[in-house]
């Protein structure tokens, strides 16, 4: 299920950094600031929760202030199957947070279409603009099991996150995996594990590795700058994962975010480009609906072999 490109390219980057002891230092560059636009980000899941949408404003790249929240918007969510339509109004619990939630918990339903409308006078011309997006929630993938195995490789101790599941044969499917470690949710997009069924369409995957984590004892082998962006595991850690069947658009969005976040690498990246969006009217961000499937495991003490 996992596309080999991510792991192999990571591997190449490691080789590359071993080969050439390059040096990195902070610099100051001058850029023009583009006109701020609204940023809409929200995901509707099949969990029975108060679904939420975050609204903020973009800002100059090197601006020293945090991005401003949009707190005066009217946010509505519409869910639609063939004959039923429900509408929800989303509001902020604390005005100014920019986090708009459904008033009551609700669960999104696979196969239904979700439409988001954000109405706000962002350009301050006295008339509110509409920023809209819609997404059809894909069917669930049934995750049969998940386990973690311990591997020793080139002086490092690694943990492989393996899953067993049936991939639907009908079309190319896109997935991402969110996880918590000892109850802490790793909710940043850069920590998401994205993959698709290219090369394994319709297969039953049996204990297939989707990610490798380093053991905490390896921290000293990396520089501080890298460590702050890495996730380490230790024996006995409790891991909870959610595998989500997502749309191609959202998968591209995650991949773009991960690829563009730190700028482009001349060896392995393409030219810098804007991250894709499905929000209308010049806004940034993404709105999507996805279904989830979860599993738990404990990081093992011994080597699997």
């Amino acid at each position, binding site marked *: 299920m996992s596309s080999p490109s991510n792991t192999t390219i990571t591997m190449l980057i490691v080789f590359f950094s071993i080969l050439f002891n390059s040096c990195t230092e902070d610099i100051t560059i001058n850029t023009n600031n583009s006109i701020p636009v609204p940023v809409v980000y929200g995901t509707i899941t099949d969990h029975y929760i108060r679904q939420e949408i975050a609204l903020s404003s973009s800002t100059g790249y090197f601006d020293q202030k945090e991005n401003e929240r949009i707190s005066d918007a009217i946010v509505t969510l519409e869910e639609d199957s063939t004959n039923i339509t429900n509408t929800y109004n989303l509001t902020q619990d604390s005005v100014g947070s920019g986090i708009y939630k459904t008033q009551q918990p609700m669960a999104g339903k696979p196969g239904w279409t979700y439409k988001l409308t954000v109405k706000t006078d962002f350009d301050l011309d006295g008339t509110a603009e509409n920023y809209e997006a819609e997404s059809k929630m894909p069917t669930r993938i049934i995750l049969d099991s998940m386990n973690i195995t311990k591997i020793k490789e080139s002086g490092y101790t690694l943990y*492989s996150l393996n899953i067993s599941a049936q991939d639907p044969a009908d079309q190319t499917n896109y997935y991402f995996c969110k996880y918590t470690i000892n109850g802490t949710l790793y909710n940043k997009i850069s920590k998401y594990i994205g993959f698709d069924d290219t090369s394994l369409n319709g297969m039953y995957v049996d204990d297939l590795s989707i990610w490798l984590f380093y053991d905490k004892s390896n921290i000293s082998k990396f520089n501080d700058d890298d460590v702050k962006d890495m996730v380490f595991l230790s024996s006995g850690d409790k891991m909870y994962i959610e595998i989500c069947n997502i749309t191609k658009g959202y998968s591209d969005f995650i991949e773009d975010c991960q690829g563009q976040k730190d700028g482009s690498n001349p060896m392995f990246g393409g030219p810098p480009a804007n991250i894709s969006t499905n929000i209308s009217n010049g806004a940034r961000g993404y709105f999507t609906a996805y279904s989830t499937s979860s599993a738990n495991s404990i990081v093992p003490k011994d080597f699997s072999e």
Partner: protein
Amino acid sequence: MFQQHMKRKRISRLKLKSISFFILCLSIHFLYIEPSYALNPKTNVTLSGVVKDNTTNELLIGANIYVVELLKGCKTDSDGKYSIRIPNGTYNIKISYIGYKTKEQLLTVNKDMRFTANLESGVKLQEVVISSKKKNENLSKVDMGVQGLSNIEIQKVPALMGEVDVIKAIQFLPGVQSTSEGSSGFSVRGGSADQNLILLDNTNIYNASHMFGFFSVFNNDVVKNAELYKGNLPIRFGGRLSSLLDVQIKDESPEKVKGIGGIGLISSRLTLEGPLGSKTSWLVSGRRSYADLFLKLSSDPDKRSESIYFYDINAKVSHRFSAKDKIYVNFYSGKDLFGTSSEDFSYGNTLASTSWNHVFSKNIFSHLSINYTNYHYELGSSMENSQITWKSNIQDLDLHLDINHHITNKIRLNYGLSSTFHQFEPALIKRPGYPNYRIQRSYALEHCVYIGLDEKVNDHISLKYGLRTTIFQNMGKASVFSYDKNYEVNDTSYYKSRKIYHTYIRYEPRFGIVYQLDHNSSLKANYAHNVQFIQIANNSDSGSPLDLWFPASKNIKPQQANLYSFGYFRNFNQNTIETSVELYYKGLNNIIDFADNAQLLFNDKLEGEVRTGKGKAYGMEIMIKKNTGRLTGFINYTLSRTERTIPGINNGKAYLAPSDKTHSVNLMLSYKCSKKWSISAGWVYATGTPVTYPTGRFEINGEYYPIYSGRNTSRKKDYHRLDLSATYTPTKNPKKWYQGEWNFSLYNAYWNKNPWMISFDQNTNSGIPKAQMTYLFGAIPSITYNFKF
């Protein structure tokens, strides 16, 4: 003692100058004076033969054969052969070649006869930095934008980590830019790296890099010479928009086994060559890096199982069946491997070719060759739960017949045909327990016929013109997608194996003229129309090894370039100083780039990621070079601009090409201090390459993501670098069977931090984004020991 030595040297240099001047005057005469006897000829006979180095038996290309009494001459061709029609009689024949002592011979030529001239090398007296086959050839030949480098010249360019490299040497030439720091990818007049045709003994090399491009596949010990054509390619070559780098392997016929080699920081190399009987000669060469050998000394068993290396093997055998027939067999294999105990990545080229040179008559020579090339890479993991191999390659099988036909001394025809079978394997993935997964292979045929003519119209004007006609055909088995205007697949067609399902026919006219103003100067103009049918889907600047070549098709039109160039060439001081100013304009059509955030690997709908449009490149190249004397070298300046306008990229507005550099200066100097010491210095300065900086950011879950408002609107800071090298050649000890030489080099001598990558990170405390610059190399010293016997 030293002063005396200097004095002697000065005298010999003066002598050489006068000899050179003499040769120059003669060659100008034989080129531009129409002999009067031609109007009333006696019986004409043909004098033909070859010109060779008297010790190595190496055939000399472009040597001058001059009949003194007739004021008439000719040059040897690419096989070292010459042929000249003269009235019967007894003549003084002068044979000359730069770097060799001129030979004079009295010959009575009463019937067609063969004469082999053996020239004695005079290289030690006369160092040549930028070789010119004839003293003022730069003025008289029609070609523009052509630079030749010999093995010796390449050797002089200070090299990164001591690895002498032809591609690094050509990056010092005007109009040529490295695609990124230390890379063996190069951009010619604003073109991209895949627009360069790179040939090793006439066989295409698809990826000429080792170690992610920091070294090239060319082991300089086996390189005879390299020529770079910046757009106006010889008529027998085509298929690329920007340039041809034609690297020729040594073709000597030594009388006994001899060797050359070296031990460097990165690699060691050994080349042996020798005779096998009187008609056969052979060459075998190997080079291997050995950083990984130190890993074997590690106490950690994991480290011991790691490997990082590259190697090259070159082999060449030539056999002369008769005075008219010679056969060559060439082989090259090179590989890079990076491996740990459970993962590895390798890539490399395999080339094999056979060619047959035949002399039909005194005036017709043919060259028939069959060439095979294969660039492949493979990644594999044997790690538990993620066993996988991923393979990709491109293979060509090519048949080429080339005929040189000297109709008269003034008119030479070059015609021929070629046919190439391309096979592209984008990705084959194997996992134990799962079926194999393959991105569909694609196949194409490329047939070409060409004819070109060199014509000397009169004393002042020479012309060169020709036409290539190429037929490019896509061949089954294939599933071919059709795309709508949003690049989504809306139809699929299936074609059976070997079914030709799409054909392009393209004509490539080429034209050149030189107008020689006087003995010292000339004006030239060139036009070339080039078409490129295959290209790389790889949008990294540095050229990662994960190249994915793909052909023109129903959805992707062939890329085209119209190159116009104009130049003024002038030599000073008896041709010892050559100067030139060249202006060029290149208009590009169907030029390729990729959609924002394109997925190029593992994408069977790759064509949906391609965007095509127009481009233009224009500029001025100024070159001053000094060819002889103790101090040799050149300085060049390039002013240029390269833009692309492609719908779907940068909102359809024009943007700068990644390799655009407004100003570029290259300085290369070599100075022979004494018999034992020589030093070289290379300095490069260029405007920083275009870069795209974010103009805004948005935040999701505590992370910041960039917003861009245009592509390549900023520039990195200017690039500059000084490289130094010194070579110490001890006096040869007659008791020793070999001659050694030490080379010391210093790359980036004043440690300029040239940005390789600009990246972004969030401040650990505030979380606010900051910019970071990565530079690859500080000052890198190296030492290499070379030897020959």
